[in-house]
Structure formats: structure tokens, C-alpha cells
């Protein structure tokens, strides 16, 4: 989780990733943030985020992203 928070805080230091739960639904992260983020997460966690993983539920909060990362690592 620390590694994820570090990536997120570097990407958008202005966003409160500890508490936000509607990052996508409220448009806090935009499409360009997602492109940058997907690349970084794939590299950092040795996973491959697929297009069908790109749904708001998986990216609305840091917690949801961590759950997706763990799920993909198990596969």
C-alpha cells in the first residue's frame, strides 16, 4: 500500500488519496492521469492491467486500486 500511495502522491500531489472514494466518478483523475497511472502500476507491481479492469469501481479509491493490484498479482 505504501508503494501505491507513493506513486499516487507523485502523480497528483494535490489529491487526498487517503480519503477520496470517487476519484473517477467525480472526475478527479482524468483520462491522462489514468494512462500515466496504468503504466506505472504495471511496472511497479509487475502486473498487466487490461482494458476490462478499467472500470470506475477499480479506480475510485486507493483501496480499490490496491485490491485490483492484489487480484492481478494472484492470477
Amino acid at each position: 500500500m505504501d508503494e501505491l500511495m507513493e506513486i499516487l502522491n507523485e502523480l497528483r500531489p494535490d489529491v487526498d488519496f487517503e480519503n477520496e472514494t470517487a476519484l473517477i466518478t467525480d472526475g478527479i483523475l482524468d483520462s491522462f492521469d489514468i494512462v500515466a497511472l496504468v503504466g506505472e502500476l504495471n511496472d511497479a507491481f509487475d502486473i498487466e492491467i487490461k482494458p476490462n479492469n478499467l472500470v470506475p469501481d477499480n479506480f475510485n479509491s486507493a483501496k480499490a486500486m490496491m485490491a485490483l493490484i492484489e487480484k492481478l498479482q494472484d492470477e
Partner: protein
Amino acid sequence: MDTSVLNWLDRTAEQYSEKTVFNDCSRSVSFAEFNRITKSVGTYLASFVTPNSPVVVMSGRHIMTPACFLGIVRAGCFYAPMDATMPKARLNQIIGVIKADYMIVDKEHLEIAKGLDFDGKIIIFEDIVDTPIDEKLLDKAVSGLNELSPLYVIFTSGSTGVPKGVITSHHSLMCYIEAVGSVLKIDSSDVFGNQSPLDYIAAVRDIYLPIKTGASTVIIPKNEFAMPTQLFDTLNKYKVTTLCWSVAGVELPAKLGAFDELKPEYLKKLCFSGSVMPCKYLKIWQQHLPGVMYVNQYGPTEATASCTYYVVDKTVDDDTVLPIGVPYNNYTITLLNEDNTPTEYGKTGEICVSGPILALGYYGNPEKTEESFVQNPLNKNYRELIYKTGDLGSYNSDGLLEFHGRKDRQIKHMGHRIELSEIESTAKQIDGVTDCCSLYNKAKEHLYLFYTGTATSKDITIYFRSVLPGFMVPRKLVQLDALPTLPNGKIDMQTLKSYFK
């Protein structure tokens, strides 16, 4: 002869009355109802506004925003749209340039509007949308309108740190829409999928091609662009045939692998502009959708959206560089050398544009207008203004124009035009930033700020996010003890570029 976009709307509202003109995925509006709303808004405004004056609009990504624009036009005025998601400081700068007496907002953005340094009257759109129509008043309101009257003022990055308001006339807009509509063969059966923010120049196609031809536009919710399979689902659900997107928008689904899941089944035409298309992404589109017509467009806001186009006539490779093609109807391109002599055929010169599509200038800024829109130095016989784009180009052996980048420090990033000096002048406002230089790593699409001083990268990003649009905020911040300099004392940008990671 049509003198304003209202002539178009009057015709399509009659001919396609019950057909949908705009749909934002939660509501839709027919041509007749859309026209009715523009007349209600126009009637409300016409009773007190000064004709031919600006009205600011701050309204969301929904079907009522274009109705608000055209309502202002019905009152004999022109609109200056602002994106409410931009930082307050940026919105205040725009307000300071346009100095309007009235602003129309939707309810959703009322609180933001109240928090701005706006001295005029704020009008809530929802309160005026059912104003009883007064046809006589509307006729009177537009009696002074001619085809050179301003239609809108759209703001773009300015090198001094204050955005510039480009004023476009009805005539210029109509010339462009006619030209692009005929290249893309748009008719009433077409459905556009709008990507551009509605306040941005690229949205004029999605707004005015339907009003001209009877086609429809689906305003796609912004967050779907982060979720590409959802985006393609939406394109299929509404049977979207035509996309006029920024290059950055076209890249997204290809970058995120959306075609592995599904594809836009109904798409026939894809036209893109805003920056140079990396063909490795266009190739992915072509592989999955070989029957689609792909059109590369080029042009600055000052010459009404796009000057030239190129219909891609072959399958591209990763390293293909697309030409920017040939001028649209009513656009004349001249290449000039630094000394204002004509550029020899095949050689590189500055791309200069002339024709009825030239903007009326920068709002409230005659000095900048005179500097940018100048007499064609090759014409000694009569008045002919040209706009010097600052872009470099040359003709290839097929007679097609090719693009070779900028003369100055303006860049294109995520489909937006940015003056690097504007980023620097903003950074210098921060306590703890002594000196700085902003550069663009085009290969990786990273915007850099190299700086000296005690500020942390977090301080800088938070400040930037409070004053500049997101696309202008550098993602890479590099703190240095000193900026490298050349013998003449200027910053050594080549050395700084070697620090790109």
C-alpha cells in the same frame, strides 16, 4: 446568402424538428425544442443586453450548454465560454479580459460563479429557459447583426501569462463548417461523439455541423475517456458514425488496449487534430477499423479551427509521418521566409494563412492583434491580412503540405496549445522559486519544470493546480542548484534536455 448561424438553425429546426440534435447520455433534445430554448434565452436577454456585446457562459457538459450559446446569439450578442473545472485564478483572468456585463451559469456552477471576481450580473440558465418567446423582440435584437459580427470568443494560452481571447465571426465559422462538412460528407444521418470540452475550439464541429446539416451529437461524459471499454460501449449504444477528436483522445483507447475487448461498430469517419498523430496508435485504429475514413487536420484557433486536411489514403506504419495536406475551401496558405520573402517550393517556411476565416483578433488587445494579423508582405496592391502561425511547413513532391514544428516555444500537449513561457511566469510567482525553465519531452509527452530555490515539488504542483488548467501542470519537477547557462547568459536548454529521464 446566410449571414449568421441562426439562418442554419431556423432551417434545420423546421426540417428536422422532431429529430434529436444533442444527447448527453442522460437527456436529449430535439431540433424544435432546442430552437425553442434558444429563443426563450434570447428573448430574456434581448430585453436588456447591449447588442454585439459579450456574455460569459459557465455551463457543464450537457445538452443545455449549446442552447445557451445560441440563445446569446439570438439576443444579438456573442458568447465567451469558460470551463468551470479550471482553477479560479484562470477564470478570473478570463473575466478580466472579457469584462462582460452578464454571465449565464447552470445551477450546478452557481457557487463557483459567485466566488469569482465578476462585477456583472449572474443569470441562472434554468430560471430563464421557459421565458415566453417574443419574436418581434428577437427580430429587433439581430437587426444589427452581419456576417462579420462576432459569434464567440475562445481563450487560449498567452505567452505573457494572461490567456488570449480569439474572436471568431459568424462568417469565419460558417466557412469552416461548410468546408469540413463537405470533406467529411456530413449529412443528417451522421451522429457525432463529442470529446472536446464545449468551451474549446474543437467543439465547434460537434455543435455546428448538426445545426448546419441535421446530424446529431452525443456529448460523452468526461470520465468515460478514462474507461475506454465504457467509451466504446457508449459509441455503439448511440450508433456514433463520426468522431472529431484531439489526437490525444484518439490515442487513449489505443494506448489502453480497448480494441482487445470491442470496437466502435458504427464508426465511418475519424477526424483528428490538435497535435502530430503518432502513427503507431493510428495503425491500431486502422487494423481494427479498416473501412473508416481517417482525416488529419491542422490549424490554429486564429484561423477558425483547422486550415488544412489530409485524408489518409494508405495503411500507416509506426514511423509514418502524416502530411497536413491541402487547404480547406476558403483558406489560403502562403509560406514565408524570415525576411518575408516567398519560400521556395520544397523548402521550409513559416505557414501563413489568409482568407475569410481569419479571426477578428484578440479581444481587448489591439496591440497583440496588430502584431499577429499583418498585411501580406507579398501583396503591395491591396489590403490582405495574413495570420503568421509560428508553425513551420514545406510542400512535398506530391504537393502536400508537411508540418515541421514551431518557430518559438509554443508546444502541443494532450491536444492543448501551451506557451512554455506562461508556465515559467506562473512558477516565478511562487515564493521559493528563484529561477526556472520549462521544457517539453515530446517523445514521452512529459512536461518538465527545472527550477532553483527552496520550494518542494509538492508546493509547486499544488500552486500550479490552483491557477492553471491540469494539462498545463508539469508532471516532472527537477530542483537544481543553478540553471545551466550559455556564454551569453541565456539558459542552456540543450543541457537541460539531457536531464530528461
